[in-house]
């Protein structure tokens, strides 16, 4: 069975998924992970991406983002 090779962006998304401190600190917000740290966060994705661009010097289309959910919150359809 073969496994999928991951990019640095995907590795950052996995890091942010598995880091308990990120889950606690940024619940209910968007975060941009870059090189295993959160470089921008907030509830407005446009603002978050602008801040991430400023901090990293990278364009937004090279920076992944994800939302940090509150796991106690159900997601109604």
């Amino acid at each position, binding site marked *: 069975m073969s496994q999928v090779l991951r990019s640095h*962006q*995907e590795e950052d*998304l*996995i890091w942010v998924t598995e880091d*308990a401190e990120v889950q606690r600190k940024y619940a209910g*917000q968007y975060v941009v992970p870059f090189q295993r740290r959160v470089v921008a966060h907030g509830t407005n994705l446009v603002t978050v991406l602008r801040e991430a661009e400023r901090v990293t010097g990278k364009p937004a289309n090279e920076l992944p983002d994800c939302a940090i959910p509150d796991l106690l919150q159900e997601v109604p359809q």
Partner: protein
Amino acid sequence: MDIPLTFLTATYSTDRGQALSLHRPVITAQFPTHAGFLPRRCIIDTGAPLSIVPYDVWQVRKLKWLATSKNLGGRGGPTVMMWQGVACELGEMQIDLAGPRLLVAKFALQPTPPFDVILGMNFFADNDLELNVKHGTTGFSGMIVV
């Protein structure tokens, strides 16, 4: 090909001091934007019959998707699709998850609180994918088998 799942985990404490650990499986897929593909984390929700793409995700990231229906006919006549209190439109797009996959989803038409893309049961049916999740001494593990 096996695509490993990762798990969001949060541990809470009850009034009696007992730990309560909660988990959600997630996967990273490549989503097409105006500037090429970008990886996005998706929450796998087998309790969701239909996948969901939040407004911020497709609008801010300029995802390429095709609207297919504003309403759904069925029991009791046409139904407006809603999610988190906002209207949605049925649409589809192609994402990359170890190969091209069809994502048919409700696309929210207004902003909602931050949330990731939800892959519901229809995603697994539409793409003939197998989902395996198990819990052992080291916690949850799982994979999507293509």
